[in-house]
Structure formats: C-alpha cells, structure tokens
C-alpha cells in the first residue's frame, strides 16, 4: 500500500482503496480533512510526506490465541500475550471521536478492522509491550481503554522492535477515564536504527472529577509523532509531561489539544526537550478553554536544551480562551547546557561526557521523578542511559 494513493480522493475513491464502507463515518471525516501535508498545521514540523511514496506491505489482522503472561504484548497489531483474567476483546469501535483534529486518527480507524478493547478492572497496574517484527510494513491498530469509576489504574507502555527496518506504525488509543477515577499512562520509547517510524494518534475523554496523568518518555532517533486530544469535563484534571531526548536525525515530539469543557477543570502540561545532533523536537500544544469552562486552571510550559548547534526545537505552546474567569499561563525557553555548571563538574575530575550526562539527567529528572512507581523510574533511567551512550 502506498499512502500517496489516498491523496485528494473522493469518499468513494478512498472507500474503494481502503476496502471500507463508503458510508463509514470515519471515512467522511478523513476525506473532509484530507491526508496531512507539510502545510497542515499539526504536521508543520514533521515530515509526514516522507512516508507517502513508500510501498508498504499490509498485514492481515487475524486474532491469535492469547498466551498467558505477566504483561499484555501486542505483536504487529495483535494481542499475543496477556495476564490471566484480563478482559481483552476485539470489536468494532463504538465511540469514535467525530471531531478529532488529526486525519491520521481516522485513517488508523479505517485501516483497523477492529479495535483492541481493554477493560481495566479495579485498581489495575498493567504493562503493555508493543512488539514489531515486520520490515517494510504498515502496522496499524487501535486500542480502546476503559477504567472503572473510583478506581486508580496505571498503564506502562514499552516498545520492542526486532531486527526490522522501514516500517511505519499507526496506532493510538481511545481512552475513557471514568468519573472520580485516576488513570496513569507512562510511555517509554527508545527508537533507533531506522527500524520503524510512528504516528500515534490518541484521544482522551475525562469524565467528571476524573484524573489523567500522562507521562511520555521519547528517546533516541528516527521519526515519531504523538498527537493527543484530551477533553475535560467538570472538575477533571490532566497532568501531561513529555520528555524528549533526541539525537542524530530524529524528528519526534507531541502535538496536543487539551480542551476544557466543564467548570473547574485543571490542566498542567510540561515538556522537557534535550536535543543533540541534527535532531528536531516538536512541542505544538494548544490548551483551549471553552465558554462552558469557568474557573479553569491551565498551565503549560516547554523547556529545551540544545546540545548541538544543528539541533532545532519547534516549541509552540498556545492558549485559546473564551472566558474571563480562569487562571492560565504558558511559556517556552530554549538554551544550552550551562558552561559554568559543566566546568564545575569537570574541575572535580569528572569527564566531559559524564558531566554533560549529569546535567542532562538533572534536567530530565524533574520529569522522570514524577513517575510514581520507582520500578518504572528505573526502567526509564536505563532507557535514557542506553540512548545517551549509543552516541
């Protein structure tokens, strides 16, 4: 399959190419927005068109028997392992967002014959490992995640790629955070060696008094973009933190829209970006406060350290506000490692590489140490080390 074939197609033409019902709601939305280009606001800093000319192998998504394991493993878009008693189903998506800003959200749904639905029972603490084993493939899958009211769940996401190359992954979540519950999502990803590129398009819907904590740790090379839409009902709270540590030719980051719909909702979004080599970091984040969202509190901030003069940070924190009764702030800074700090460490016999690492980790630690589970913190620190010492 070549994505370019979907460019500027009518609903009928796109339906024929994708093999879906021309009346599918997602298709109408996809055709209306169109395949993103470099002129699309959300993809301005990410060269999505790089993937359009390539011919990708498509996979067949036939459910496998699920083996018992300590974590959920999704191999090339299908669940292959899961803990005993975990409620996982394949089904048609019942609750697609018909106002998502990202066309790839709809393309992901159209390409996926079914969604993987995961019900989080009680105070669940699960790990989802995404495994990719196919080269030159277009791997697409969507996950629907539901938790229960008054419960507190944690999902730790990790990514493994075998010896593959030139694969494109389109995946994403539709997550519904129940009233009075907390959902913590921690994503830990280290990409390198041109194994795969990723466009991850997510939707979070937070019910009344729901609390979502989203922490993403993106390290290494290659291309990856996560696009997040989050809607907040009354008294809901979202705490989003994004760490980027990139090197070589990486192009990765976050495009997000957090929408305050209900009164007294609060959001806090923080991006820490460490960029080396020729890498490009992206933080294009909008917080929108609607007319109905009085007494909102919304804060967002991006900080970047450039370790190489050729590295580039595209930071665009934005607020769009339609009410007066709120508290909001946003800001962005970009700089280098402090030479005085670097010299101080070196003057005590610490090598320049180690001193730089200490300062970079110190910068990153403020986010890593927000991860509640110390086991997860350790895994993230180890991933950081691997990415740091690979160069």
């Amino acid at each position, binding site marked *: 399959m070549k994505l370019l074939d979907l460019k500027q197609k009518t609903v009928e033409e796109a339906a024929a190419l994708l093999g879906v019902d021309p009346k599918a709601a997602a298709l109408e939305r996809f055709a209306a927005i169109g395949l993103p280009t470099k002129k699309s606001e959300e993809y301005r800093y990410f060269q999505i068109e790089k993937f359009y000319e390539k011919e990708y192998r498509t996979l067949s998504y036939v459910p496998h028997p699920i083996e018992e394991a300590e974590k959920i493993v999704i191999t090339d878009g299908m669940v292959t392992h899961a803990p005993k008693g975990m409620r996982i189903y394949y089904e048609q998506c019942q609750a697609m967002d018909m106002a998502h800003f990202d066309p790839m959200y709809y393309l992901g749904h159209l390409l996926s014959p079914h969604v993987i639905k995961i019900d989080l029972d009680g105070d669940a603490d699960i790990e989802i490992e995404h495994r990719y084993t196919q080269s030159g493939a277009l791997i697409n899958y969507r996950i629907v995640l539901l938790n229960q009211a008054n419960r507190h769940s944690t999902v730790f996401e990790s990514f493994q790629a075998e010896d593959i190359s030139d694969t494109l992954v389109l995946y994403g979540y539709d997550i519904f955070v129940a009233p009075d519950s907390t959902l913590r999502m921690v994503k830990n990803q280290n990409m390198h060696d041109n194994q795969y590129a990723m466009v991850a398009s997510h939707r979070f819907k937070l019910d009344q008094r729901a609390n979502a904590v989203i922490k993403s740790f993106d390290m290494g090379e290659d291309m990856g973009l996560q696009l997040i839409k989050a809607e907040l009902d009354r008294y809901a709270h979202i705490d989003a933190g994004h760490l980027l540590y990139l090197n070589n030719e990486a192009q990765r980051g976050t495009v997000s829209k957090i929408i305050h719909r209900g009164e007294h909702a609060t959001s806090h979004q923080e991006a820490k970006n460490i960029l080396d080599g020729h890498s490009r970091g992206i933080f294009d984040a909008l917080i929108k406060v609607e007319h109905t969202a009085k007494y909102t509190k919304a804060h967002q901030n991006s900080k970047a350290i450039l370790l190489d003069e050729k590295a580039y940070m595209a930071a665009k924190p934005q607020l769009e506000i339609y009410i007066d009764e709120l508290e909001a702030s946003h800001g962005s800074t970009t700089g280098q490692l*402090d*030479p*005085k*700090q670097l*010299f*101080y*460490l*070196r*003057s*005590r*016999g*610490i*090598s*320049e590489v*180690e*001193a730089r690492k*200490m*300062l970079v*980790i*110190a*910068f990153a*630690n*403020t986010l890593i140490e927000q991860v509640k589970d110390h086991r997860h913190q350790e895994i993230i620190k180890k991933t950081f080390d691997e990415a740091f010492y690979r160069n």
Partner: protein
Amino acid sequence: MKILEIKDVHAKIGEKEILKGLNLELEPGKVHAIMGPNGAGKSTLSKTIVGHYDVEVTEGDILYKGKSILNMEPEERALEGIFLSFQHPVEIPGVNNAYFLRTALNAKRKHEGKEELNAAEFLREMKKYLEMLGMKADMISRSLNEGFSGGEKKRNEILQMLMLEPEVIILDEIDSGLDIDALRAVSEGINMMKDGKRSFLVITHYSRILDYIKPDYIHVLKDGRIIKTAGPELVAQLEEEGYESIEEEA
C-alpha cells in the same frame, strides 16, 4: 623540586590581557598566600591554573610536577591533583550532592588504579567529615549547592577537598561570606590537609583568613604580575600601608 611552576604566563579573558608575565613557584608542603587589590588578576590566576574556558594563555607555561599542564583538560588537571575551591560555587539543581561527590571520588580512584567505592563505603567515608565541618546530614541528599547559604557552599567545597585529597589546593576567597564559626570550621578542614607535601595557594583580599591558615609566603599580585614575595611579616605591612606602598622587586 617545585610542585607548581608558573613561568612568564600571559593570559587574557576575551580581548583583555589580565596576566602579564606572571611568575610563581609553589613549594611542596607550603602555604602560599596571594594578596592584591581588586582587579589585580587573582581570580584569573586561579582560573588559569585549573584550565577555565574563559581564559586563554597566550605566552608562558605552567608546570605541575615538572610537566606542562596547559594542554590538559580541566578534568585531567583535577585527576592529577589540582583542586580549586571556587569563590562562588555554582548551583546545579537536579544533581544530587552525594552522587556528584561519589562520581568525582570514583573518577579519581579509577585514575589512581584503586577500586571504586560503593554507595555504603562512600557514605561511611563522607560522614567522617560532615560532623567536623558542621554540615547537616541532609546537605548530602540535596541538589549540589542549590539553596545553600554562602557558608554552606564553602563548607561543601572543603568537604570535596577533604574527600578528593588533592596535592595543590587553590582557595579562592575562601573566607568571603563566612561568619566566624564557619571560618573556624573551614580553616580546621584546610589545616587538617597539611601533611608536609601538599601545597596551598590562598587567594585573598584580607588578612583575616591568614590568622587561621598560617602562610609561609606572601605574594603580592598587582596588574597581572607578582611584584613582591616575602614572609608572613608582609601581611602586617599590607594591613598598615595598603598595596600602594609595595614597590615591584627588581
């Protein structure tokens, strides 16, 4: 043999020449005090010895144990045994004080072919000095110098010096910002390091610190050069008459 020899060093910061043919020799086991007016080049001298990025040496040489160090990186100079206690130690949020010091100590031990210390061994070693310096135990778990008072920062410098056991110790305005108790504790730490082999270069504006750390030599630095070297008796003359009274020695 001299432990450190500074030979006709000219050094500039930016386009401005600060050191203008400075000569100085440090003897093993001796305390050398550098005194001089503001802007004489005292801090530039300390920066030059440790290889600070601000300073460019345009002429001359610095020999440590007979070997030129001008082409050595700052960390190499430190590993060889040169230590600068900074006038204004920098704050580094997010870098744990104990982790930093253990990394530095283990880098030194590795350089000397010794086993690295594990966390428990290191803490045992460090605790010996904390009490002596009047340092609170929580200072080791805080970020490096972050939110430390002036006195705490200087005590932390001395703690590093005690742990790293350097051979040439440069103390740049170690007494600035210290109350009398802190000055006593810091001086005690410094005096503990005297072993007849280590050399000290005490850079100071005022003679107060020299009541606690007895110098063997006083060098007057003025306009980028050492203009006079004498015994401790010179301090009294400087106190009395100021730097203007000092004539350059032939």
